[in-house]
């Protein structure tokens, strides 16, 4: 069954890449690996009969956002993590904080697993009920997006605008006009 193989390959790629993203200290590598994992994810999307989402994933995430990250990494050129002075007034020392966080994350995994185990119908094959043709069609997607979700769409556009202005204001040096 080839598609199962494809799925496992992509899933493994995504997870592995993500692990490596947080696994080493060089932000440059992290960015690239994250791109890889996004690619894998878009593969999964294609398998889920969402080609448009897949392409958008590549274009927006890998093509735009990640370039932005890359740009910043190169701009700041701070390739290594630097140890900062941790002021002592904190209730939790920084190292322990990291450990605590990791522990919490582990708990999260447990809980999510638990939630999944309680979820009904998780073993039914995806898309066994409905055909992927309609879901795959960009036309349909656009129709839904611009009719039922118009408001959300407009709201997001405003959000983007605000974010843009904010970014400009933030990144400007003090004193610059």
């Amino acid at each position, binding site marked *: 069954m080839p598609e199962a193989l494809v799925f496992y390959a992509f899933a493994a790629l995504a997870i592995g890449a993500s692990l490596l993203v947080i696994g080493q200290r060089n932000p440059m590598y992290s960015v690239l690996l994250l791109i890889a994992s996004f690619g894998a994810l878009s593969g999964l999307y294609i398998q889920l009969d969402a080609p448009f989402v897949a392409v958008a994933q590549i274009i927006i995430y890998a093509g735009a956002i990640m370039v932005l990250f890359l740009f910043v990494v190169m701009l700041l050129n701070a390739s290594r993590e630097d140890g900062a002075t941790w002021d002592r007034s904190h209730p939790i020392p920084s190292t322990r904080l990291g450990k605590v966080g990791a522990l919490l994350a582990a708990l999260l995994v447990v809980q999510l697993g638990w939630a999944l185990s309680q*979820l009904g119908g998780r073993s039914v094959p995806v898309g066994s009920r409905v055909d992927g043709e309609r879901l795959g069609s960009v036309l349909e997607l656009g129709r839904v997006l611009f009719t039922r979700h118009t408001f959300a769409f407009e709201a997001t556009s405003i959000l983007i605008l605000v974010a843009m202005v904010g970014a400009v204001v933030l990144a400007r040096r003090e004193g610059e006009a």
Partner: protein
Amino acid sequence: MIPLGHYLIVSAVLFAIGTTGVFLRRNLITILLSIEIMLNAVNLSFVAFGRAAGDMDGQIITFFVMTVAAAEAAVGLALIIALFRHRESLNPDAFTSLKW
């Protein structure tokens, strides 16, 4: 046909990885990346659910998440640049003092 559960498991694992990243890494950029991982994990489960339920909304939500992620990245990176100008550092622990 892949069972829905598999996708969900993948997304759960990705989410957990993102969370861990936020805590373990000491580099603002990497932390932002971890957040992106979480977002994508959620996206995956959305699309998977949508596919299983057979309607578009999963994909729609994914779009909105993407746009939000774009905005978040823009602002976040701008912040990082601004912060980096103040202290030549990207370590969140360097910015614990609430004003300087």
